[in-house]
């Protein structure tokens, strides 16, 4: 399949899943022909539309960050979730909630980005020491566990049951009850993060030949490292601070697209952004349709889907991993 065709197809899929996300729910609402002032129009304008837009922005960010992290670390198992970047962003955001800053989404996002940047910087330092694929995944496990422990510590110290419930519900990862204010916070940072990640394409291609060859091809590894840290940190940090941890999007999407887009890392970034948006919008529409009074949390649904996929990847690639 030609690249232009693939991107057109993915763009079409993004529009389709976006429409689905507007329509799907306990009540199906067609997004056209709504009379102003009706409850349906209100639900559409204040709930469905911002939620679908959030799904679009965050899915694109998570998908692109997965493609870039895999290219940068030359490791098909890399992903913001697997490597603990999301968990550290979550810890940052929980710290903000713990400190009673939940009324200011911008501050929660700033704390989330701080956690993500710190985790990315640690991983990039390890990357500079050319650790093996296994080393990275292990480092990610350590970073995740540390973040989980610190988060649990904050939960156990929560000042009152309301703060506790707020933190726990948020941690499960969802787009539920997020609206325009969250969208305005996350979009600029996600756009900036995506932009920075897009700049890394050529360096990622050269890194396919190893660091020495990449440097000989004129790649500035230090600049590339900072682009990856800043792009992932800002984008994933902001996304997690709004939705909680929604894992595995960045892991699954590049894998599904490689057979069609080819393995060149730069050729995967834009398709993975579109693919991430499709996956998240689709998953979020499906959790809204889940039976029962409440709804399945998006983060839990993605983990239930993503963890077996990760295991399957490990199984299939076991002879490739040193």
């Amino acid at each position: 399949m030609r690249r232009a065709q693939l991107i057109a197809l993915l763009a079409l899929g993004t529009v389709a899943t976006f429409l689905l996300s507007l329509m799907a729910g306990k009540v199906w609402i067609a997004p056209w022909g709504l009379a102003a002032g009706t409850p349906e129009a209100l639900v559409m304008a204040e709930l469905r539309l911002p939620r679908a837009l959030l799904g679009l922005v965050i899915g694109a960010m998570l998908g692109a960050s997965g493609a870039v992290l895999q290219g940068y670390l030359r490791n098909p198992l890399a992903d913001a979730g697997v490597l603990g970047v999301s968990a550290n962003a979550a810890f940052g955001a929980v710290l903000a909630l713990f400190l009673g800053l939940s009324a200011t989404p911008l501050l929660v996002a700033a704390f989330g980005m701080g956690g993500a940047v710190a985790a990315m910087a640690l991983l990039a330092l390890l990357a500079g020491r050319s650790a093996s694929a296994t080393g990275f995944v292990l480092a990610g496990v350590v970073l995740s566990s540390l973040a989980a422990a610190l988060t649990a510590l904050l939960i156990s110290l929560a000042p009152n049951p309301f703060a506790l419930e707020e933190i726990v519900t948020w941690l499960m990862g969802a787009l539920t009850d997020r609206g325009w204010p969250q969208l305005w916070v996350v979009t600029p940072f996600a756009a900036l993060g995506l932009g920075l990640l897009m700049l890394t394409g050529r360096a990622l291609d050269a890194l396919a030949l190893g660091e020495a060859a990449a440097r000989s091809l004129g790649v500035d590894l230090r600049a590339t490292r900072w682009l990856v840290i800043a792009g992932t940190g800002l984008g994933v940090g902001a996304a997690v601070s709004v939705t909680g941890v929604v894992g595995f999007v960045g892991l699954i999407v590049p894998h599904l697209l490689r057979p069609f887009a080819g393995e060149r890392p730069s050729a995967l970034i834009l398709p993975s952004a579109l693919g991430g948006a499709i996956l998240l919008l689709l998953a979020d529409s499906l959790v809204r349709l889940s039976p029962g009074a409440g709804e399945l949390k998006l983060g839990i649904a993605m983990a239930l889907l993503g963890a077996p996929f990760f295991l399957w990847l490990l199984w299939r690639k076991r002879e490739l991993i040193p």
Partner: protein
Amino acid sequence: MTLEISGLSLSRGGRPVLRDVSAAFAPGSVSVILGPNGAGKSTLLDAMAGLRAADAGTVRLNGVALADMPHRERARRIGYLPQGGEVHWNLRVHELVALGRLPHRGAFAGESGADRAAIARAMAAADVAALADRPVLALSGGERARVLLARVLAGEPELLLADEPLANLDPRHAVDALRLFRRAADAGAAVVLVLHDLQAAARAADQLLLLADGHCLAQGDPAEVLTPALLAEAYGLEMLVRQDAEAGLIVAPKVV
């Protein structure tokens, strides 16, 4: 494009690896760096590629210190083929060869006609044109080595550095590769190879550099450097050196 090294010293992790090495590499010539394991050959090549900073001494390309040269310009002038044949993604052969043109492309530009022509020339020269659409990780070791060679040729560098480019090649493809380096030199490039195969070095080189323990033991044409005395000093092994009418200089360890 003349590369001049003067008084180069370099240490790694506090251990001196190169000590006061000086040499010049002229356009149109093939030079080979020889020496036992750990003599500092790869480190010297890295320094010549501008990838490793020196403790003392300079590396100059046509009089300009490599350390002062912008990355992009250095990358356009110097082609560097590291040892080991590292490839991380299952790229198609033509995609991998095209990576050699990265320093020639504008910031957000695609491949130009000149890029495509250079890629096609390099693939034909390295005898990999027939593999263009094959995934790299499915190739044999020798095929992959030739594809990586095509990658560095595609950049059409003025200084071509290759670290053990003959590893993994069968005798025919090794001879072909040496011819390829000769052709690059005839086209005006300065070619510098690190080799372990003394026989290949004798055959390919206009100039030999024999390194031992970080310093330059001998420098000159093959007949001057490949002598039993110098080889014994460098490798700690008794060597037989014979002039043969058909094979040229024959160098082999003595059977004890």
